[in-house]
């Protein structure tokens, strides 16, 4: 606890009752020059991440690469096994039975792409992360119910403990909390 006193706080977090209020607050904060903003909502709201300047996710590219790698893995595995490493006459079929190799190639494509989607999503979201300072705010539990939170990071160049709190309180939040780091 003594450490907490010396350590600067992580962020200031304002709690709002509706997504409209949250969006309004984001606009106001950006207008006021704050850049290190993060919003927490109980369900996905496209306008919120759009407002925070996140337009394109890198994920589709990751998935595409995953799919291509999967397709090649699947096909080459079958080719190598059936033609190079273990060539046998099976029912008079050619060693390189490309028609028969389609289903497995398809499945590995999907498997790798789906794996890339899930792992990519967790990686981009920096998860798993069991501890995060925002959990220190007791009311943050409501972020998974029906409350909307806006946090301004303490590393924001325009951040000032007192002025920022004043600013946030001016946005008509339910309340403003300090996020201990």
């Amino acid at each position: 606890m003594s450490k907490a006193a010396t350590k600067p706080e992580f962020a200031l977090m304002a709690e709002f009752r509706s997504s409209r209020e949250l969006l309004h607050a984001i606009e106001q904060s950006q207008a006021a020059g704050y850049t290190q903003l993060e919003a927490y909502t109980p369900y996905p709201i496209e306008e919120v991440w759009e407002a925070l300047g996140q337009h394109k996710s890198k994920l589709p590219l990751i998935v595409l690469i995953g799919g291509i790698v999967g397709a090649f893995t699947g096909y080459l595995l079958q080719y190598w096994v059936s033609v190079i490493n273990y060539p046998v006459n099976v029912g008079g079929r050619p060693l390189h039975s490309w028609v028969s190799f389609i289903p497995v190639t398809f499945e590995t494509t999907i498997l790798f792409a789906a794996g890339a989607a899930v792992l990519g999503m967790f990686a981009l979201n920096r998860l798993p992360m069991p501890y995060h300072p925002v959990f220190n705010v007791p009311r943050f539990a409501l972020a998974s119910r029906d409350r909307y939170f806006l946090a301004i990071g303490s590393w924001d160049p325009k951040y000032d403990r007192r002025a920022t709190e004043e600013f946030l309180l001016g946005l008509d939040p339910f309340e403003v909390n300090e996020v201990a780091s």
Partner: protein
Amino acid sequence: MSEPTASTHERSFPPPADLDGLQSKAWIAAGIGIAASLAGWFLDPTQFYRSYLVSWIFWLSVAAGCLAILMLHHLSRGAWGLMIRRVLEAAARTLPFLAILFIPIVLGLEETYVWARPEAAADELIQHKAVYLNRTAFVFRTVVYLGVWSFFAYGLSRLSLRQDRTGDATLFRRMQVISAPGLGIYCLLTTFAAVDWLMSLDPHWYSSLFGVYFLGGQGIAALAFVILVALYLAQREPMAGAFNAGHFHDYGKLLLAFVMLWTYFAISQLLIIWSADLPEEITWYLERAHGGWKWVSILLVLFHFLLPFLLLLSSDLKRNAKALGKVALLLLAMRWFDVFWLAAPSFEHGHLSFHWLDLATLVGLGGIWLALFLGQLKTRSLVPVNDPYLVEALDNE
């Protein structure tokens, strides 16, 4: 993009004036094509009938496919279909005319269909099928197919028009009630139509997937055509303000879905027949895997599946009407190749040959069909103005 709710109902969507010009051009193309085809008929009647069959099936796929998409739209009640409903209806209403254009095929039945020739009497297998594959039954069935399709096309069109006039909100429900059995009947009849018109060209061969494959192709043909018409209309008032990227995104997604579906059917059929290697089934594929036909097969793999598939994965492309239009054009062209690939190897066993009559009949029939289509399109408002979903449809992102 969205319009205020109140005003949409008052907006009107009359067909743009330059549809008349386009229609005249279509008639001119039809005239040239028909003249050339007639010349071809004098020079080489056999080739004429064969080319004509391919061209007719191609244009029929577009028209009949539009009927199917129309019913799908009514069934799903999706907003996506409202913007193109009038295009679909107009295309579907050309079906009775296509029935008239079927007459030359009946006249040249012996030139195109082996089973219609006298020597078929010596073939045990064809004799087995003679109850089904004979001139009378064939013509009768085709009349039934086109009659039933036309019935649904006109029935739905009439209700849709009445909805424009009265604004009766229960009409969309009625169109849905018609479409549910309609789509089922459509699929069943199309399956048999595919057997009659295409599969029976090689009367020894059979595949139970064939009808479904043909249906998938029709979906592509119709959607590609609709996208092109939508692109044309979107560049002109009054639709310029109504179409947005969201609409094309939806059509692109549907097109992608149908491309995948078609590919799925094509691969399934090939895989099953390839793996079992039954002599009675493989001859059909062997004809298409050797000689020049091999290249047509490869063409289909690359440009009917691979390239459009990869392009349509991109949502940017789907939202870009012009780029989507190019893909649609490519797919429409590949639809012709697919019909050609299904039909022609069975005429001339072994070698690939294109004939100028293939093009002449395609242009001739296409000109007539497009002119008929545009004639139908002109008669109505381009959007069903009193549909309860219109606000949602216009608002589609």
